[in-house]
């Protein structure tokens, strides 16, 4: 899993997510779940850690389910107060849950097993056809790598500044909303100053190394397909065919638009 070419992983994840959105039928979801479980096992990432990755979307999940459960029209199952729960509502919300969970797990799996830099490299490669339309693919990919690289640094920095202001008696969680918003000024300003300083340093460092865009640039670790990637693509095709067949013929459920 970890050694697959990042391009393979991106294509894999993309097709997988697409398959979740095109068909809405229990057989497809069962196959999709199976596929995901096998992938997780192969990746050797602890299940618990994957489950923890769902935490940030837990609220979104709960919200979608609640809305769908309560406000979908159809055959009434039972009702209370002003809400009616319908069979369609239950169906819809279980599909939605499945879809969201699979989606988050699949994309987490990809980012957990791949270094961000190789992801952007792979994206650059996969987006190369866009060059025909004058999209500056290399530059976009470079910007993405830099942004990804800087997120943890800035988070660290923000933490440090926050503590430094707390040492001067700053208080971030008392008072009304206006006071609270105002209390972030002493964090935001130094953070911006430091971000600009870092950007400046980086630009200078890149120029000192004669960086001048993507033209004719070679890579430290060229992307290369291996045996494993071929196997993965074959599996992917089998998966796709299976899904399409089941989606179209089993249960006779029509494809649902996004």
């Amino acid at each position, binding site marked *: 899993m970890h050694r697959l070419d990042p391009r393979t992983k991106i294509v894999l994840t993309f097709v997988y997510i697409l398959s979740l959105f095109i068909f809405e039928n229990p057989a497809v979801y069962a196959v999709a779940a199976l596929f995901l479980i096998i992938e997780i096992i192969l990746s050797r990432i*602890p299940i618990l*850690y994957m489950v923890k990755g769902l935490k940030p979307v837990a609220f979104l999940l709960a919200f979608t389910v609640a809305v769908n459960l309560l406000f979908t029209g159809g055959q009434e199952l039972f009702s209370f107060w002003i809400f009616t729960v319908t069979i369609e509502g239950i169906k819809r919300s279980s599909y939605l849950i499945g879809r969201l969970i699979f989606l988050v797990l699949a994309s987490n799996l990809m980012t957990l097993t791949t270094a961000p830099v190789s992801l952007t490299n792979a994206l650059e490669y996969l987006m190369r056809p866009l060059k025909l339309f004058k999209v500056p693919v290399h530059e976009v990919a470079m910007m993405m790598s830099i942004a990804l690289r800087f997120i943890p640094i800035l988070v660290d*920095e923000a933490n*440090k*500044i926050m*503590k*430094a*202001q*707390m*040492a*001067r*008696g*700053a*208080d971030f969680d008392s008072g009304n909303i206006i006071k609270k918003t105002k209390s972030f*000024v*002493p*964090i935001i*300003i*130094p953070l911006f*100053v*430091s971000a600009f300083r870092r950007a400046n340093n980086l630009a200078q460092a890149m120029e000192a190394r004669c960086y001048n865009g993507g033209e004719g640039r070679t890579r430290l670790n060229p992307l290369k397909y291996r045996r494993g990637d071929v196997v993965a693509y074959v599996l992917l095709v089998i998966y796709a065919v299976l899904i399409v067949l089941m989606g179209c013929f089993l249960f006779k459920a029509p494809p649902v638009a996004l």
Partner: protein
Amino acid sequence: MKTEKVNELNELNTDIPILEAKHLVFEYRTGAAKPVRAVYDVSFSVWPGEFIGLIGHTGSGKSTLLQLLNALETPASGTVYFKGQDIFEKRYDRKKLRGKVGLVFQYPEHQLFAETVFADVCFGPLNMGVDRKQAELTAYDTIKQVGLEDECFYKSPFDLSGGQKRRAAIAGVLAMKPEVLILDEPTAGLDPKGRDELLDMIASLRDKENMTIILVSHSMEDVARYADRIMVMNEGRLILDDTVSTVFKHRQEIKTAGLSVPEVSEIVAELSAAGLPIRDDIFTVDEAAEEILRVLKEYRVI
């Protein structure tokens, strides 16, 4: 101006330590990896008016320890007492505490934010609930005290030189009138002159205002020159805590902690090992010169 209730009890008491750490343990938890133990079972007492030097190799846990001392981080176990009161107790006013135990961070100039130096220095005292007029008076005095010229008062802090920014940031903490001042490598990146001026200023705070000082530094020479007592940290543990002369006698421990004793002490120790009747508790150049002259005279070499 003594409005706080928590500390009034022990205001005049010099029989108890002003700060006391008891079996502090702290771990950083980052992601799935196992936690980094940054501070492990550290205990010590700080007495009013002391000047303590804290030294240790990079990553030995100095900065983390300092953040525990004014409750910016919470220890996994152990606790800190300020004037005999547990600062991690639920009802203790930790915001007030941070005004009493002032912490100047590593590279404090990165925390400057206001439009003028003056406004930035006022930030601390205003947060502590001092009224505006009093805060401005204090800010005025403090900016003078750290040696910034008058024309800096209404400049943007971002237009100052590196050394001036450092002073402005230190003034921002000093303006809260802390009883204990903790400085994390305040001289990093300063030129020798700026460094000496800053350290002299800090020493004068102790001498004139009886402020208690804890100074983190990588320079043994600086610490030896100004501190009464040295604490040495290694890999999260406090391995030495004693008077300057006693600590520098433990040369082996200091070396295993990845540090070096001042060069003068090294030379004096070697002379002493070579059989010269020379005192071996010397750590400043002047003292060493005097002592060597004394010995030479005794031997009638000169």
